[in-house]
């Protein structure tokens, strides 16, 4: 039932605490937002789920398995950084991902290219930042991964690209098979997409709540809730 579980997880970087004895359990089939100030531990939490880093203490379980290197078979991770080869064309990047991941769905990739209005023959190095953002999303969502992790998917992109990305998340994710967890600062833009929010500050999980519950119970938006919980 739960897709991600943190049990007493701590992570330090050179003595600086990024996560401090964090406990967290997230259900599958939801869109989850990780919110919190810069440096609160959101990216660290996502990287731990992706098996890209190891905790100093405690255990991270994803899809019922310990999150290590092999977990990338089931987890698609959208990094904040660009991770593709700049000498590839868009089409070649897709073929490369298809070779890398068994769950990569070529049909879906074609649909997503059309939706994102990307030219398959364009070279990655010639793409604008916005178009690289579109390509990154297309590559990530074309995998039929059980868990999709996104670190700041909207950050630094113009409103048109942001809207396209939000629409693609609403249309291309299959929540019967997939779960999405993303960190974001664009809280009010992302809010309509979310089922659950996790508030993090100073490496601690402060609160987990359902968006519908926040609105039903307190009649407030997520931004307002965030101010109350985090500040």
């Amino acid at each position, binding site marked *: 039932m739960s897709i991600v579980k943190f049990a007493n997880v701590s992570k330090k970087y050179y003595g600086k605490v990024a996560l401090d004895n964090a406990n967290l359990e997230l259900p599958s089939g939801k869109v989850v937002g990780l919110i919190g100030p810069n440096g609160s531990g959101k990216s660290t939490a996502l990287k731990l789920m992706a098996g890209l880093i190891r905790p100093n203490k405690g255990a991270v379980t994803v899809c019922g398995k310990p999150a290590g290197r092999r977990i990338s078979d089931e987890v698609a991770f959208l990094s904040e950084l660009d991770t593709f080869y700049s000498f590839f064309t868009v089409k070649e990047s897709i073929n490369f991902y298809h070779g890398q991941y068994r769950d990569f769905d070529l049909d879906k990739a074609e649909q997503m290219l059309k939706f994102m209005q990307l030219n398959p023959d364009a070279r990655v190095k010639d793409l604008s930042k916005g178009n690289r953002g579109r390509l990154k999303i297309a590559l990530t969502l074309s995998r039929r991964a059980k868990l999709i992790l996104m670190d700041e998917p909207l950050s630094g992109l113009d409103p048109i690209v942001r809207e396209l990305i939000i*629409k693609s998340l*609403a249309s291309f994710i299959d929540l019967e098979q997939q779960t999405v967890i993303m960190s974001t600062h664009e809280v009010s833009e992302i809010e*309509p997409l979310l089922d659950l929010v996790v508030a993090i500050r100073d490496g601690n999980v402060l609160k987990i709540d359902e968006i519908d519950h926040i*609105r039903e119970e307190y009649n407030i938006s997520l931004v307002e809730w965030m101010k109350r919980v985090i500040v």
Partner: protein
Amino acid sequence: MTGGFNETQPIYYQLVQKVILQIVRGDLKAGEKLPSVREMGGQFKVNPNTVQRAYADLERLNVVETRRGLGTFVTEDRNRLTQLREQLKHEKIDTFIKDMQEMGFNAREIKDGLNEHLSDN
């Protein structure tokens, strides 16, 4: 705010209201098929779980019915649709009257004001 939602009510609830408004206005006709969960999600930029929940509520209100494997359709029960239209009318008038009373207008003034406005247009 994206998708034209307010910030204080649950989104599934606002989606229910939007669909009801479309039906009352006649944009969606009796027996007409609603967009699929996916299409609706894309259109309003909300996640499929939210659309699912809104459709389930509409079904509970007997406004739509889901036919297995075919999709979700506006009810063909004309009585229910007339009732829905009346219900919406009363709700709006109730809020209007409450607002007016709160500002200190009496029934006479409210009626006169309405008549004046309606004959102007």
